[in-house]
């Protein structure tokens, strides 16, 4: 047996290979779809060892599955984390993270420019669990600091805000979090690890909706949580990870599993108990998508910047939220965190308000009117009447959404055709 080479492979190579070593039994090169609910144990001792977490073993596909594991490892590798746990959706990944880290009476500080579904989840679901919440300006690290209390247990934000296009100063906000001995949790869905890797800037946990650019083709719903492995869960604030767990016969997850403590807890308790697991078939489709992530993202970001600049020059457009335009005065921020491009989802505001917005959507031919982003095909939606409908006017304004705001997710079509479609929709 020869040793494996000690080489740090490039991002594109890892997007194809990480987590997908050829299957040992058959030599299958594509990751096989292990479409099975459960796994035959070798003997009673092995079964016990798997359930006791003394041995890495498959027990039940709600908790682990080899196809899903290949997906988890690939994203962990691309993000620079120590591992990942996949979920049935991005929101399932997020809620499982909150369930794992928070207890009644705890407090969360979060960006106020988040995806509407995340704002609703934080405000209403966490409230039911008696978790307190403060929304802050993602662009102002000092506000995060001022909002922090003795009870605060995590910061939560998005690398690129949905849909306002805010770009967080991850390094500064991570520093604020760490000064308070709490983790920074980042939703990196809009950037993907190809454009930005928050862990490299100090984030502790990274969450994705894989449904978007990772999958890339609008076929499957899924999410994943990645851990940097760097946070000290034994700092006195996280008894939920560090202390012996009643939910796992007294196991102390951080002491026993070290840098994998949070992930092991997330999988073997939270995923086990909440049950929102990813299906193997969806994991397979995500793996196919990730193989071409770098190629697609290059086209997504160049098309998006082209369309945004074109819209910005029009007199019937009030504003365009693309980060490259939004942060004209702060180009250094984008150069630091998003040197390859600032994503492909942005908004523009039509003169003429809600009615003009709805008319515009009625007129498009090529853009698909639907509630998703990150598809290879271009997408369009009117947030005030759909994705952000649960928000009141103040919350809409805080999230950067006006009645005439249109959100675009720019695909990888020919840019001339996209501009043709938008041009005729203005008419």
């Amino acid at each position: 047996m020869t040793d494996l080479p000690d080489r740090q492979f490039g991002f594109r190579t890892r997007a194809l290979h990480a987590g997908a070593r050829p299957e040992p039994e058959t030599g299958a090169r594509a990751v096989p779809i292990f479409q099975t609910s459960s796994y035959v144990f070798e003997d009673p001792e092995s079964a016990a060892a798997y359930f006791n977490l003394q041995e890495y073993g498959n027990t039940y596909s709600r908790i682990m599955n080899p196809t899903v594991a290949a997906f988890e490892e690939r994203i962990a590798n691309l993000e620079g984390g120590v591992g990942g746990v996949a979920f049935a959706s991005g929101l399932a990944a997020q809620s499982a993270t909150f369930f794992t880290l928070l207890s009644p009476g705890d407090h969360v500080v979060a960006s106020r420019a988040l995806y509407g579904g995340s704002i609703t989840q934080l405000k209403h679901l966490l409230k039911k669990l008696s978790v307190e919440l403060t929304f802050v300006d993602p662009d102002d690290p000092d506000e995060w600091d001022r909002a922090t209390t003795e009870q605060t247990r995590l910061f939560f934000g998005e690398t690129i805000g949905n849909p306002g296009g805010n770009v967080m100063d991850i390094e500064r906000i991570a520093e604020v979090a760490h000064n308070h001995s709490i983790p920074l949790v980042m939703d990196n869905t809009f950037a993907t690890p190809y454009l930005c890797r928050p862990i490299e800037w100090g984030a502790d946990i990274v969450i994705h909706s894989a449904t978007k650019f990772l999958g890339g083709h609008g076929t499957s719903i899924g999410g994943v949580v990645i851990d940097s492995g760097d946070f000290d869960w034994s700092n006195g604030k996280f008894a939920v990870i560090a202390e012996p767990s009643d939910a796992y016969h007294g196991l102390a997850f951080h002491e026993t599993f070290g840098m994998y403590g949070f992930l092991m807890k997330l999988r073997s308790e939270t995923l086990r108990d909440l049950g929102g697991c990813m299906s193997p078939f969806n994991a397979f489709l995500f793996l196919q998508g990730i193989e071409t992530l770098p190629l697609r993202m290059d086209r997504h970001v160049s098309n998006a910047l082209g369309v945004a600049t074109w819209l910005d020059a029009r007199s019937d457009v009030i504003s365009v939220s693309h980060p490259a335009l939004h942060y004209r005065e702060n180009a250094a921020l984008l150069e630091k965190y998003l040197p390859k491009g600032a994503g492909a989802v942005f908004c523009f505001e039509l003169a003429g308000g809600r009615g003009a917005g709805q008319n515009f959507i009625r007129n498009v031919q090529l853009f698909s009117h639907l509630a998703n982003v990150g598809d290879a095909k271009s997408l369009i939606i009117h947030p005030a009447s759909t994705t952000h409908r649960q928000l009141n006017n103040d919350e809409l304004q805080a999230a950067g959404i006006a009645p005439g705001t249109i959100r675009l997710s720019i695909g990888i079509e020919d840019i001339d055709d996209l501009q043709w479609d938008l041009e005729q929709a203005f008419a």
Partner: protein
Amino acid sequence: MPKTIKYQDPATIQRVLRTGRSIAVVGLSANALRASHFVGYYAQRHGYRIIPVNPREEEVLGEPCFNSLTAVGDAVDVVNVFRDPSAVPAIAREAVAIGAKALWLQFGVISDEGAAIAADAGLDVVMDRCLKIEHARYMGRMHWLGLNTEVVTARRRIKR
């Protein structure tokens, strides 16, 4: 991602795991919930002979305990340490004295002095790494739990 520091060389780690057969676990606990027990249990399952070194126990994992490395008598390939870092230099000197081939210091067991004593005597040294995790990474099933093995290869896995 692990930082590349001294005593974490992947080739050394793989060589120790591949060639070692007997592992003396210094500080092996009888408590099944302790990390040392997890590692000892796992290594035993994967065919290594486990030699517990713990003066406070008589038997762990079905093997008799020894008070110290020098009391073991049989050949020891790997000395695997779950002790306070301050105890490592003395353990390293014992490891050299009994002719062990490798000194493996677990997570948090960081002793440059102890590591240097063993390395100067020609032992392979691994520090601040978990033997169970590294075995699972290169020859086990770490990839079944979504953990980042950092293994990137188009070669088929060889079973052990």
